[in-house]
């Protein structure tokens, strides 16, 4: 049975108000915007069958190549909708105003999308990658029967957590034990091993966790989230698709901070070190200014599944409860970039 947090993640949705781009309005009057509820774990192209009826009579003749933008910023369809929202709306905007385009696909920026098929295979390929990270191979995904694979995808598409909970154990993904409770409530799945047999030394237990980290950097400082400037280019976002090595040491809890630190040592690691050595951060900043080295940046906000995260939370809890159905944990981070 899925626990409560997972249920919340699956039921999470973002109200969207979708406008047809004005260059594509061929009817008078222009169609009113469409209101739809977009599942957080879903993907924008999957909403097209819901949205298209609103606009189909207003479109100019031609073939569809559908994409979305937010304030002119093209949205990558292969990023889960909830992650896009967390990343691009520092101050959550509800409803979220997006623009749909049926023409003029920006193929220099976005990967082509052939509707549901593309989204499904993007999901399956991510699932394979996650399986490889967790179990060291993707056999269990490859060996899943065609119909189970299809049903698993359908469960994700329909937000059917019960069906997903029934099917996903067939993937035999290793799990990590929740660190804060020593209960071994889940007994059937094998423990997560990473690269097990090869580890001859094996003093520290490790596991590899599939993580996708999206780092949006801004140069100005801000007081409130609503003052965060709008984003103009994907170049302001860096994307790290890199497993986190989960370290399990006696008497120590591996936290979200440790996980982010391992991916972004420039932000937490150095900073922690300098402030530790210098006593206070300001001294460190000034001394770096003097010799021309960049100042360290600063993490302003970490968001997962719409939740603003405290960095001290045990990473095992975060992974077990907030990961997406393809077994990836998507983390959105807002940083103030180091000044040059």
């Amino acid at each position: 049975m899925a626990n409560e947090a997972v249920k919340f993640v699956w039921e999470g949705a973002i109200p969207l108000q979708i406008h047809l781009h004005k260059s594509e309005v061929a009817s008078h009057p222009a169609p009113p915007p469409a209101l739809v509820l977009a599942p957080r774990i879903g993907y924008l192209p999957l909403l097209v069958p819901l949205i298209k009826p609103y606009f189909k009579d207003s479109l100019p003749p031609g073939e569809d190549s559908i994409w979305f933008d937010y304030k002119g910023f093209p949205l990558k369809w292969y990023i889960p909708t909830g992650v896009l929202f967390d990343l691009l709306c520092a101050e959550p905007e509800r409803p979220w105003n997006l623009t749909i385009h049926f023409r003029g696909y920006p193929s220099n920026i976005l990967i082509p999308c052939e509707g549901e098929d593309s989204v499904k295979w993007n999901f399956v390929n991510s699932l394979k990658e996650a399986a490889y990270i967790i179990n060291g191979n993707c056999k269990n995904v490859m060996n899943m029967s065609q119909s189970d694979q299809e049903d698993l995808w359908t469960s994700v598409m329909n937000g059917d957590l019960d069906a997903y909970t029934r099917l996903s154990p067939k993937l035999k993904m290793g799990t990590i034990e929740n660190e804060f409770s020593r209960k071994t409530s889940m007994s059937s799945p094998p423990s997560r091993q990473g690269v097990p047999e090869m580890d001859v030394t094996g003093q520290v237990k490790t596991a590899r966790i599939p993580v996708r980290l999206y780092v949006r950097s801004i140069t100005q400082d801000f007081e409130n989230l609503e003052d965060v400037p709008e984003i103009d280019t994907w170049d302001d976002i860096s994307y790290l698709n890199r497993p986190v090595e989960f370290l399990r040491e006696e008497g120590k809890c591996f936290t979200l901070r440790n996980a982010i630190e391992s991916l972004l040592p420039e932000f937490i690691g150095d900073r922690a070190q300098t402030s530790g050595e210098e006593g206070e951060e300001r001294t460190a900043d000034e001394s770096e200014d003097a010799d021309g080295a960049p100042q360290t940046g600063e993490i302003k906000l970490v968001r997962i599944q719409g939740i603003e995260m405290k960095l001290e939370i045990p990473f095992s809890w975060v992974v077990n409860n907030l990961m997406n159905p393809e077994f990836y944990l998507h983390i959105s981070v807002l940083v103030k970039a180091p000044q040059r």
Partner: protein
Amino acid sequence: MESAREVSDGRLTVEGFSVAARAFSDKWKLHNQSLPPWSWVPLINRALLVSNKEEGYLSLEKIVILSSLEEIPEEESLNVTADYSESEELIDQTILVQNVENEAHFYDFHIVYSASYGVPVLYFRGYCSSGEPLSLDVVIKDLPSCSVSLLVESKWTFITQEEHPYLNRPWFKLHPCETEEWIRLLSQSSTSAGCKMPVELYLVSWFSVVGQVVGLRIPLEMLDQPFSV
């Protein structure tokens, strides 16, 4: 600690990748003088303004493939040459428009390390002289015929368009999920002493297989000689 000098399980560490990459580009320069060298691009994270000397990828750019030579037998079907700019200037624009088939296609190849799979991954993109990117339908015509049939069979699991991990733009990607397995097989058969492959030979062996998918063959001497540094 496992030795950084040998590969026994088909995977590379990020440090191993950087060693293997340098060895590969050195050998390439030595044996493949008709093509430009691979260059090492250090990873610069634009958003974070952080550069990392250890991490990066290999890049071979502006390789010209003349799609007009399609009919020539498979062995030489790809006329791969470097720097086409001189002859390009001679082509009259109007002729270019009429004979789209004869237009030169440029290809960029990047070898990027995948931390998920612990193996190198080939990314590539094609574009014409105007810089306009080539779509998959056009790229297919430039690929060797064996790749084309594989591509038709496994549309979503062989070559797909994905985001370049460092450039934030759509590139073609050769799927890496079986790499570890066949590299392990290769290293078992190619070396007599056990099943270990020197890290320096990893990318050479890997590219001898992967390069063929996109029509880039490597001279056999690159594989023969043991690396002596």
